[in-house]
């Protein structure tokens, strides 16, 4: 970011090193929103005003140019389509996607967290395992869904997608949690040991709390990756129960773009909820480093 003027740097949204404090590997939570400190009423008002402008501006342009819905659906049509037969068109598919997401994320993040705690105990193990983790991180797991459905997990169940979600979110949690566990503070560990702490007590009272901010970041990134993988997996090879990704393909093939937009809107709201859940978890449990 060296070419960016200093006064502008705070405004650039990123997950890069600039926002991560190196002291104990703790995280500046405001860094995740790309804005320092809490938003003022004016800032919140402006954000809402922009959303309103975009919504009605798009509507206006589409009406003036008389653009057909199959080219670009009007925002009002999308909202209209959302309320139309909600359960059958979206609701039950939302439930399927959520099922895949929660199952996959629970499995993947748990394995990722435990592995992170284990491999960081031995630098040798960590160095050997690291390249494979990177490979897992960069592999688009949703591409594996058809393969899983045909070969490893045969059938039309949700399990191939659950597996893909786990494979997508697990390494994300692992890589971030490992960063957290790696940042040991010898003085704090010595402190606990001087009181006679066992290895497990040192882990529970020092290493884990020290790693917690990074673990939460890992969960946040992993959850968002998991959701995208669930939806993408449904797009390439949905179970017989459908899912939001399946509905995207379905409405697109029928050129019902207002319904397509409605599904996209639901997915967006899901992603935002995940973000805010972890943002507030971070605020509550890992804000000790201001």
């Amino acid at each position: 970011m060296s070419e960016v003027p200093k006064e502008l740097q705070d405004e650039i949204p990123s997950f890069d090193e600039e926002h991560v404090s190196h002291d104990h590997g703790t995280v500046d939570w405001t860094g995740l929103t790309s804005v320092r400190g809490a938003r003022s009423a004016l800032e919140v008002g402006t954000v809402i005003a922009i959303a309103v402008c975009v919504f009605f501006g798009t509507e206006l342009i589409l009406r003036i140019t008389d653009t057909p819905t199959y080219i670009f659906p009007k925002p009002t049509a999308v909202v209209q389509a959302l309320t139309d037969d909600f359960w059958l068109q979206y609701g039950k598919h939302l439930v399927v996607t959520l099922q895949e997401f929660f199952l996959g994320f629970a499995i993947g993040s748990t394995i990722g967290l435990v592995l992170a705690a284990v491999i960081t105990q031995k630098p040798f193990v960590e160095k050997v395992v690291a390249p494979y983790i990177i490979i897992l991180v960069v592999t688009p797991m949703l591409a594996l869904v058809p393969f899983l459905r045909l070969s490893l997990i045969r059938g039309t169940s949700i399990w191939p997608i659950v597996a893909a979600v786990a494979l997508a979110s697990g390494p994300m949690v692992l890589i971030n949690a490992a960063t957290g566990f790696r940042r040991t503070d010898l003085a704090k560990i010595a402190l606990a040991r001087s009181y006679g702490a066992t290895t497990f007590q040192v882990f529970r009272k020092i290493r884990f709390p020290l790693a917690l901010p990074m673990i939460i970041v890992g969960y946040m990134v992993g959850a968002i990756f998991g959701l995208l993988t669930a939806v993408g997996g449904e797009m390439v090879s949905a179970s017989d129960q459908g899912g939001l990704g399946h509905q995207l393909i379905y409405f697109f093939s029928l050129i019902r773009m207002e319904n397509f937009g409605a599904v996209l809107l639901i997915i967006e709201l899901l992603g935002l909820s995940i973000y805010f859940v972890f943002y507030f978890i971070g605020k509550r449990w890992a804000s000790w480093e201001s």
Partner: protein
Amino acid sequence: MVLSSSAAKPKIQIRGATKVYEAKTGPVHALEDFTLDVDDGELVCIVGLSGCGKTTLLWSTAGLHALTSGEILVNDTPVIGPRPDEIGMMFQDANLLPWRSIRKNIELPSEIKKQHVDEERVAMLLEEVGLAGFEHSFPRELSGGMQQRASIVRALTTDPGILLMDEPFGALDAFTRDEMNLLLMRLWTETSKTIVFVTHNIGEAIFLADRIVVMTPRPGRLERIFEVDLPRPRTVAMTFEPSFIELVHEIKSVVERGARPVAEVR
């Protein structure tokens, strides 16, 4: 001269303590053949330049490091691991856990030892160091001096007979440091604990100590021991007296003499 009484035995006996680290560039002699006795209730300061083995000596006494050879006895028993009931350790900076409130930080030793927190004692200590009312604050909300006070309370909650202090006031400004030294002196007088205090501040060492041990680096050796016969209770005013300043100069020259060979090699 009382040979049979166990009460007269030194609280800490360090016998030929040697510690060699294996570094990439070869072995580092952090501590070599160091021998020292510390009596019950004595306050000994260890001074020396960075890297002279002060911290290694202290951590070995606390049972946090194993020696390469030699042995350390605390209460007549060889140290082979941490001795939480007998030894309280204070570290550089306050070393509080930033995710815990002051109260929770102070409870950490009891928590690890799975003991009940002595509420009365904690309240008394907090009052004593002037931290009453700050129990629910977080470390980052307190000044450096207040954090260090909390750290003292933490070390004293479980009432160990020995305090090992590793440059605890090194990061504080001069005024706060004086204040903390006075507080430490008061607590020491009241509780008659045995204290080994590591510092690189000679003035601080003279102000506090019964005896000052000067160490020289590479290998970390005991260079000389100074007896400090300033009357107690000591005051900050004493630090400006000619005899005090003379002693500072004398110790400083011994500390620096040890450093010269290293400076030439580099």
